[in-house]
């Protein structure tokens, strides 16, 4: 063989034993975690591997950039914090549908796993590193628009109190991003670890998320809805960032109706986009200068039990329902699950545990040689 001759020449340089440091198992897991995260974003891989993750990041930045622009020109955000996770869900699905097979299907396809398990790693370390890598990557991608919007809001905020209100608004978005990332990454990795064929894994993940979303959507209006009347009163500081005091009491007559952000900030939890606001009355509080007494009358929809149960088929809806339940939100993207809220919450935890548990079980059984 032609390679024999040069090999013997090269050999003359000699063999040098390695006497440097050797890292422990924990650091090896960390190295695998970092390596996996890099491969999710296509770093260190060819240009093709970068297309989808960076496309998703770019798409996620569009509403965030518009939000910053809106904040700087005193307009309402294009996409509210609460709606971000739900409305950008499609891109999160696209992200994991490509990333999960990249992380686990490749090693199955090329039978690389014996090379990992003949090294210090234990069976659970491999799925742990992969799961954490996909979870963190997706979390970063989902938090990006939240963070950019927040920075934009803070930069154009006129008072410390407004920053606090904005922080309070952003928190549910962080919650949704966290649980959506956890559920998406564990479910998609479990599905991808079932096959070594990336195309099939990608298709299965996309179909699972999209079909269950569609089903949830069909159910959300099932059996129609009725309306409940509500009246909310509150005393809130006059801090309309996009209005100033003169706009605060001007609403109700404008052609666009009440600016939603103002109402959100004045009576937290009331969202006129979902709820029909009938009337808003307000006047400066006589006892507290700088504060206003507000009374808001609105209607909220009451959904059928079928609609509430229908949302439980889909990871996105489960997280959204949990958010509505935990934060008592009225700006939900799906029917308010009340009184099934705790069921949504429990399902989030159970699905998360089942998907990650299944993933670890999968790698306990994988063959070594």
């Amino acid at each position, binding site marked *: *063989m032609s*390679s024999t001759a040069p090999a013997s020449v*090269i050999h003359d340089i000699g063999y040098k*034993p390695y006497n440097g440091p050797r890292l422990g*198992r924990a650091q*090896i897991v960390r190295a695998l975690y970092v390596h996996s995260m890099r491969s999710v974003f296509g770093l260190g891989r060819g240009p093709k591997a970068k297309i989808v993750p960076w496309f998703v990041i770019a798409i996620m930045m569009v509403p965030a950039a518009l939000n910053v622009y809106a904040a700087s020109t005193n307009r309402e955000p294009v996409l509210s914090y609460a709606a971000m996770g739900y409305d950008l869900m499609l891109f999160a699905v696209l992200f994991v549908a490509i990333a999960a097979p990249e992380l686990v299907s490749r090693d199955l396809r090329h039978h690389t796993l014996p090379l990992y398990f003949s*090294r*210090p790693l234990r069976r659970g370390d491999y799925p742990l590193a992969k799961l954490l890598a996909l979870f963190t990557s997706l979390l970063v991608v989902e938090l990006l628009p939240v963070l950019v919007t927040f920075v934009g809001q803070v930069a154009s905020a006129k008072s410390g109190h407004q920053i606090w209100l904005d922080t309070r608004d952003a928190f549910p978005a962080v919650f949704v991003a966290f649980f959506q990332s956890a559920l998406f990454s564990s479910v998609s990795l479990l599905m991808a670890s079932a096959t070594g064929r990336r195309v099939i894994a990608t298709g299965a993940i996309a179909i699972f998320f999209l079909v269950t979303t569609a089903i949830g959507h069909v159910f959300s209006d099932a059996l129609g809805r009725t309306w409940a009347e509500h009246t909310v009163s509150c005393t809130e500081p006059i801090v309309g960032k996009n209005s100033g005091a003169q706009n605060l009491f001007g609403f109700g007559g404008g052609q666009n109706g009440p600016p939603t952000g103002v109402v959100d900030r004045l009576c937290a939890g009331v969202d006129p986009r979902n709820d029909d606001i009938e009337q808003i009355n307000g006047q400066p509080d006589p006892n507290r200068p700088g504060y206003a007494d507000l009374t808001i009358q609105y209607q909220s929809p009451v959904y059928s039990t079928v609609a509430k149960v229908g949302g439980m088929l889909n990871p996105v809806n489960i997280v959204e329902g949990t958010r509505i339940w935990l934060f008592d939100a009225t700006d939900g993207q799906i029917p308010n699950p009340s009184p099934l809220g705790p069921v949504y919450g429990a399902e989030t935890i159970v699905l998360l545990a089942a998907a990650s548990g299944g993933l670890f079980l999968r790698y306990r059984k994988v063959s070594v040689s």
Partner: protein
Amino acid sequence: MTRATLAYLPGVSDNEQSIIEATALTMRYPGGVTALGDLTLAVRPGITGLVGANGAGKSTLIKILLGLLTPTSGAVRVLGLDARRQGELIRARVGYMPEHDCLPADVTATEFVTHLGRMSGLPSTAAKEQAAEALRHVGLHEERYRQIGTFSTGMKQRVKLAQALVGDPGLLLLDEPTNGLDPAGRDSMLSLIHRIGTEFGIAVVVASHLLSEIERICDHLVAIEGGRLLRAASLDSMTQALPWLAVEVDEGLDLLEARLTERGLTVSPQPTRRQLLVRLDGDPVFDTVRDTVADLELPLTRLEHRRHHVEELFADALSESSAQEALL
């Protein structure tokens, strides 16, 4: 060749120490299949051939040595470490080359070996250096930035060897390293392994079902069949003991045998071939045989210095057990 780096490993202080020590090792799978039965063996530094047919228990033994399977009973130590409890430490110091294909096609050889170096516990920079070294040693220095998918079978086998070699292991476990190679590729792979075992001073265990292939690079041979040890021996002692002198005479075989035995030689008659095998204990044997034949005035037709093929030594044991297997 002894290597200083081995010295820091507990229990491995010098050349005489066993790299692998298995005592009464038994492995029964839950289904009731006995993969290894009461296997006791010791592997010393150097190159050891692990020979056995497919299904003889080679892979099971390798998994136990790597601490990936817990034996049903028995003790096993690798590099002085207990494989039952210290698998992690063993795996950090043992390079394993699997039998089957295990390489991704769409990464370069350097990236792949570097990553696996990190998985062996090398820090980032060291992993890059050691990967370059390992690829150089297997003769892929020029091709290291090429994608593995573009490699020939021989080159892929070398990448598999390089990933086992990265990070200077104390022991290499090679499972059928010549699988799928043409004769030339086989020769160069074997000489590569030989160099690793002798000049690099790394202990090597080569599992193979082809004894004839690995015998020429091994210092020791271990044959297993049906999970049991058939034979373990140092190839040196075998080849030392092997040389016999075949004496073929047309007549007077019995007479010659009696006379040679009288003179204190070890003689093994082979009447079917009209031959006597005389063990070559030293140079004077030649003279004694010559003189005896001359004294007896026997018609000498052949005087042959015979060297047993190692395979012949194993052949009896192997055929015996496969005959048993056939009966089952």
